[in-house]
């Protein structure tokens, strides 16, 4: 697990094998804030099937160091575009089972517009910029997940 804390606004990034507790993450996002108003979150789960293939196990590989710094950079970009109070990403790596939580993005802001936009922006950039690679296994077969063209288009919107 790697954690970084950077002020103005506070940004937290964690890349970890362990599962995470969304209630605790949301409390941490708000802890000590003198003001809040809105929190938008996103939680991604391992699909049970992907493009008609059953998923048995998902293996998530990452680039230690670069993964954390690229997520930090994504969060800083979001904080430069919208008035955020806190922004946090937790992303799991290693072996995951269908239905398990993979990723959580939480953004606190005084206003919901900023919270929603920043949360969606971060997810779009995570999908296209952060060095993670998914491999699906089912029985004897294995399959690197291909990037979705629609993800690139969504990231290009911003």
């Amino acid at each position, binding site marked *: 697990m790697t954690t970084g804390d950077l002020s103005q606004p506070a940004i937290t990034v964690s890349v970890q094998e362990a599962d995470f507790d969304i209630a605790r993450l949301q409390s941490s996002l708000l802890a000590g804030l003198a003001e809040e108003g809105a929190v938008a979150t996103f939680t991604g789960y391992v699909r049970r099937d992907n493009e008609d293939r059953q998923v048995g196990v998902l293996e998530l590989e*990452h*680039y230690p160091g670069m993964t954390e710094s690229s997520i930090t950079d994504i969060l800083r970009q979001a904080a430069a575009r919208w008035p955020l109070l806190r922004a946090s990403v937790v992303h799991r790596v290693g072996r995951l089972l269908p239905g398990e939580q993979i990723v959580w993005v939480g953004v606190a802001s005084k206003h919901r517009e900023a919270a929603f936009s920043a949360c969606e922006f971060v997810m779009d950039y995570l999908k296209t910029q952060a060095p993670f*690679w998914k491999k699906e296994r089912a029985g004897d077969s294995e399959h690197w997940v291909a990037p979705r063209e629609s993800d690139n288009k969504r990231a290009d919107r911003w």
Partner: protein
Amino acid sequence: MLNVLFFARVREQLGRASLELSWPEEGLDLDTLQEQLCCEHGDGWREVLAQDNIIRAVNQVVVAGNTDLHDGDEVAFFPPVTGG
């Protein structure tokens, strides 16, 4: 010294996760490094590294096009990312 890393499909196709190269006195750029790797390891490597969606990063920052390298740099080759 250069530290070269390979991830995901690239790592599997090359059959290794990393290698170290001693730093050449005459200097080196990214395209030249890639060409050297292909010359040393054969056409299998050339095929893998020449795939047009391969991403190259120097010191953990993605690089578009060629760039000069420096002694101590970390270079990585990897396929398009699929996190989130």
